[in-house]
């Protein structure tokens, strides 16, 4: 009896010892993993020839002074996405335009505009670049649109297969000679798109040109990659896509049946500022806007460099692309230069998108007036001096 009890005690002792050992081992591995992180691969190769950076490891006295100086600069939390509209921000960082204009960029990464809006509610970024998603930023989260910086209507296509009846009819509406289809071929068509986005607006505007509405076709909601797959596999007649998926589909031989450019619907990517930053950090935002347009001017002046930078940005973010596709994207979706900005009525495209969202019941009608209240051109006017 006594020896049995001893054995039992011993078992319990060893079991507890083993459990503690296992937990300790897990804690050690976790701590070790938390402490050492691999270094990312530097993939940016695009840089203007005249701004060659010092060789790696080369530290100059001026550089040390600059490093000490930059520590005192105000830091701006800038939202970036793996898309074209973040390229000026990448350029600003690469070329030190932020430091030259008296602030430092702290990039905060987001996969898309929806995620940016979620984080805006949590005050996780101060300034970023958005297209259609800016509607929610302004109407719901009280952010401000302070400048339009890129033509985002380029590459917003509806596409069909070459043998589709829709692709056999062109110029049915003489006012829009470049668009395909007519009322007969489009009636009953299955159109795959990400509803509530600008691509959905593209479909509606396209149908309008033939006197049709969304009631005359079957719109199927899915994200863009799935819509692309549906088109390729013949599960839909038309896919309304955005870049870069639209360029991929075009490259695969699909016919661009309409585009926002052909439909003459302008759209812009805009600089969006959180309500807090707009209220508290106007000086830094003026400098940011100045630096941003220095970047767009440089990128528009050197499209090859811009295309290479875009390719590097895509590669860095895990997207496969080619330099030719990037050149096409740079050409079809040009940035707004500082001169062009002076001619643009800021925020018009956000209003158009907002109206569309209200019509689709994606935005409460009562919230719509908030958009106009949150468009402000004073910062860009001060930055560019007009």
């Amino acid at each position: 009896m006594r020896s049995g009890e001893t054995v039992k005690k011993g078992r319990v002792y060893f079991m507890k010892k083993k459990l503690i050992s296992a937990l300790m081992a897990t804690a050690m591995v976790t701590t070790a993993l938390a402490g050492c992180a691999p270094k990312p691969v530097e993939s940016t190769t695009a840089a203007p020839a005249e701004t060659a950076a010092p060789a790696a490891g080369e530290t100059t006295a001026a550089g040390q002074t600059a490093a000490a100086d930059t520590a005192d600069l105000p830091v701006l939390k800038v939202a970036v996405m793996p898309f074209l509209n973040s390229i000026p921000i990448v350029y600003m960082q690469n070329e030190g335009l932020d430091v030259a204009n008296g602030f430092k960029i702290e990039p905060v990464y987001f996969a898309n505009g929806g995620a940016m809006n979620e984080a805006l509610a949590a005050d996780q970024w101060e300034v970023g670049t958005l297209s259609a998603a800016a509607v929610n930023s302004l109407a719901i989260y009280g952010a401000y649109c302070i400048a339009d910086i890129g033509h985002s209507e380029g590459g917003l296509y509806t596409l069909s297969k070459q043998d589709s009846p829709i692709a056999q009819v062109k110029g049915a509406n003489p006012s829009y000679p470049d668009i395909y289809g007519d009322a007969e071929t489009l009636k009953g068509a299955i159109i795959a798109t990400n509803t509530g986005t600008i691509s959905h607006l593209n479909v509606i505007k396209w149908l309008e040109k033939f006197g049709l509405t969304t009631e005359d076709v079957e719109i199927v909601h899915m994200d863009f990659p799935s819509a692309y797959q549906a088109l390729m596999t013949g599960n839909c007649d038309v896919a309304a896509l955005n870049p870069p998926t639209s360029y991929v589909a075009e490259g695969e031989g699909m016919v661009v049946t309409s585009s926002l450019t052909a439909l003459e619907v302008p759209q812009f990517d805009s600089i969006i500022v959180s309500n807090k930053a707009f209220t508290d950090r106007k000086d830094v935002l003026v400098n940011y806007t100045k630096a941003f347009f220095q970047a767009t001017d440089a990128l528009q002046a050197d499209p090859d460099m811009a295309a290479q930078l875009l390719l590097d940005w895509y590669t860095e973010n895990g997207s496969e692309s080619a330099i030719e596709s990037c050149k096409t994207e740079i050409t079809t979706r040009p940035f707004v230069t500082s001169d062009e900005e002076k001619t643009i009525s800021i925020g018009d495209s956000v209003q158009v998108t907002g109206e569309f969202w209200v019509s689709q019941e994606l935005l409460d009608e009562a919230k719509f007036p908030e958009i106009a209240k949150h468009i402000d051109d004073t910062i860009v006017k001060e930055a560019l001096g007009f």
Partner: protein
Amino acid sequence: MKKKFVGEKAEKTIYAILAIATFFLAWAFITTFTAAKETTPGPIEVLKLLVTSFFQPIGRYTVYGHLYYSIRRVLIGYTVATVLGIIVGLSMGTSRYAEAIIKPIFEMIRPIPPIAWIPLVILWFGVGELPKYAIIFIGSFTNVTLNAYTGAQRVDPTLVGCARMLGTSERDIFLRVILPSSMPQIFAGMQVALSTAWMAVLAAEMIGAQEGCGWIILRGSDTTNIPLVLVGMVIIGVVGLFLATIMRMAERKVCAWNRMDV
């Protein structure tokens, strides 16, 4: 007896290898001879990309870097979930007050998938690493808690009654009767939780990530790069299997007294 056990083990290994080989052959067949070849890459293409990704970066890191970040996120979220899950589960299983208070809330929260927590987690923890750990924590906490609770509830009441009758203190009853009896259930919960933690990686890496195995799948999906999606899936599958094996080995060591073959 031991010879028979070794034979059974070898047999199981052979069956496992045959099953995996059959799976790959079926995959190769479907993606070569059916219409699926238009949309789905075959195993060779995926394996080639997988091997390449050990040397060429996907995004900013090679596979090693992505693995590092995902494993780190899983282990931190999982470890916290395990510790808290065992405490909460055993509390519920041993105290009727704890059960009465915690169980209704737990049962209400339990069915909510980790992905649904993303907006709230961003509001509470921002977009850094903390929300990713939180999502993985949410993904694994339930299984550990539930199993610890069940384990504590299933302790033979006769054993507890005997211990009490012999004057054993409540502390000793917990440490020497309830805890050891619950261990197999707790380990079963930890096993399942490890799998669900890996499932939650995808949701976790939706939050502002620029690296990780879940991020590989998301980027592949966003850019219609299906081979990349499959590479991410294969990595998560293999690492999940590896960690589950380690967990089984740990269970065999810690709960050696519970094995039927010993």
